[in-house]
């Protein structure tokens, strides 16, 4: 019997969260992204010499990981999960609470990291921790009875388990500033960062790729064996990495790198196979960001190995991992799902012509965002390679342009959605009249 195709649209409208819920996370992510670029602009020398520790670079890293990557992932996943598992989120109130805690919590926590303010660290850390626990519970509740999603569910479980470890390590790191109980603060911090990037964000982006890429490209996801092999290799790599960082110190690292590289090749080949047999050939400008981010995934693992050998700086590895792979992927995906979700919302119970996705898309801001984003990456990488703080400053300014363009892109969607919602009648009323 052929593989049953994944049904991600059945009664999807019934499982749509209020429009404002995912969008508040997306808009907050744009705001925090802009702040991150401002911090990098103000502290280029700190970035070149960064080797861990509190201060502006740690704040910028957390603005990126918590403020941008996590924020976007939470906003997108609470909506996409309920659509793909065919189960609505159990509690809308919990989703709202999650946003009320996470959005300000990140700001307070980052302020604490910047100024080493214990009060801000405790308050911000607590808000973010509670928010992430609520998120983990929401996802757990939604996934526990989900069936037929195979490798997608497996990736999301791995992401949630990583998230629990990240939170635990994060709390330990904050407490260590005051009680100095960790044997090795640096290795714990590196584990926390790598788990956040490869474990939570990475697993989530790999898992959701198997829903989103076939959906946007109109293609089937058929080679499940390859996808499962990729998943197993990626999880093994992550486990080896964590064990190595916390216990064996360098003994298993090269195995982890090899396993991670093979796993990422399996994933990329899976994506290639999906795209090869797609029905829609033109995938639009945002897919170029996704393609580039895919190139950065194995590159980030190679960069990690090079950093370990002392060939490149930790900051360069961080830029390739967080900005070139994860952020670029999220930006590309966000540019597709924001208009898509909006058209679904606009069609809810309203008569009349729903704007098309391209009518919701400000092409100019999308182009500025993507070109500026690529340029800022190149400038940052060059600035780090040649230790040129001016290049990093210019790269940060160009990155800020990209962030603000994305902000405008989303605000424009909100504006059109609001205007349309006021201009059309509910279906029942329209049909009577």
């Amino acid at each position, binding site marked *: 019997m*052929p593989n049953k195709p994944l*049904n991600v649209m*059945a009664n999807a409208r019934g499982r749509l969260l209020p429009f404002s819920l995912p969008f508040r996370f997306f808009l907050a992510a744009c705001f925090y992204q802009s702040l991150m670029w401002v911090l990098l602009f103000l502290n280029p020398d700190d970035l070149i010499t960064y080797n861990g520790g509190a201060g502006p670079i740690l704040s910028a890293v957390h603005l990126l990981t918590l403020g941008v990557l996590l924020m976007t992932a939470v906003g997108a996943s609470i909506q996409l999960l309920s659509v793909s598992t065919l189960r609505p989120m159990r509690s809308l109130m919990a989703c709202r609470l999650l946003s009320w805690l996470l959005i300000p919590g990140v700001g307070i926590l980052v302020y604490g990291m910047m100024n080493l303010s214990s009060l801000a660290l405790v308050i911000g850390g607590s808000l973010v921790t509670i928010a992430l626990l609520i998120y983990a519970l929401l996802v757990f509740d939604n996934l526990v009875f989900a069936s037929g999603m195979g490798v997608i569910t497996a990736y999301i479980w791995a992401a949630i388990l990583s998230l629990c470890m990240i939170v635990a390590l994060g709390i330990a790191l904050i407490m260590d500033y005051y009680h100095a109980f960790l044997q090795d603060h640096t290795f714990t911090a590196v584990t926390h960062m790598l788990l956040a990037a490869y474990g939570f964000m990475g697993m989530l982006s790999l898992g959701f790729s198997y829903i989103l890429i076939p959906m946007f490209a109109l293609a089937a996801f058929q080679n499940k064996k390859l996808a499962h092999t990729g998943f197993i290799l990626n999880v093994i790599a992550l486990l080896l990495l964590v064990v190595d960082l916390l216990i064996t110190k360098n003994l298993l690292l090269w195995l982890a790198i090899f396993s991670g590289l093979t796993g990422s090749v399996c994933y990329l080949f899976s994506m290639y196979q999906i795209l090869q047999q797609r029905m829609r*050939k033109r995938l639009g400008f945002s897919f170029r960001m996704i393609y580039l981010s895919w190139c950065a995934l194995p590159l980030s693992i190679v960069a990690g190995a090079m950093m370990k050998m002392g060939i490149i700086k930790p900051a360069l590895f961080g830029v390739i991992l967080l900005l070139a792979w994860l952020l670029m992927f999220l930006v590309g995906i966000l540019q597709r799902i924001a208009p898509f979700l909006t058209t679904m919302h606009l069609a809810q119970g309203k008569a009349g012509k729903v704007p098309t996705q391209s009518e919701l898309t400000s092409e100019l801001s999308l182009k500025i965002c993507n070109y500026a984003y690529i340029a800022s990456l190149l400038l940052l990488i060059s600035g780090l390679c040649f230790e040129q703080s001016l290049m990093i400053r210019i790269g940060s300014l160009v990155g800020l342009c990209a962030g603000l363009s994305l902000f405008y892109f989303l605000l424009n969607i909100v504006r059109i959605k609001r205007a349309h919602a006021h201009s059309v009648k509910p279906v029942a009323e329209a049909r009577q009249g």
Partner: protein
Amino acid sequence: MQFEYQISRSIHDEHQNTITYLEKLETELLKHGHDKAPDLAEGDLGSIIWQLIPLIEEEIGIHFQFEEESIFPILDTAGDSGITFLLTEEHRTILPLGERLMELARGTRNNTLDDETWSELRRLGIELIERLVSHIQKEEMGLLPMIETLIDEEQDAELSNNYAMMR
């Protein structure tokens, strides 16, 4: 995509043909600016515009009618009226758009096209492509997988037969 039932495969094949055509139409429409009508005798544009007529009459008209009369009631009975509501609303937007495009395409019979007509044809053509691709996306990801879970072999044979008769 791999589908078990004949009716899902037929609808899927039509989607594939429609998208192949729409991509050709998109390529041709985007080759020319919106304000100056191109010479239809040159290149493939004329024949591709002409192919809009059977696409809208047969692929879209009959396809939509069959779905609304034979497929959507199965989903409604199974309690999933959300997707049928959404798809029916989209049919109501796409069909008038297609009908207007068909009128414009018929006007190009002598390979003549004024700037104003071209501008409208290009604008509506691009709109049709986007709406239809998005509609097919929803049917491929939602409707067809649902049909596969809701019907049996007997119903499949009956639906396939009815569809063949309509065509």
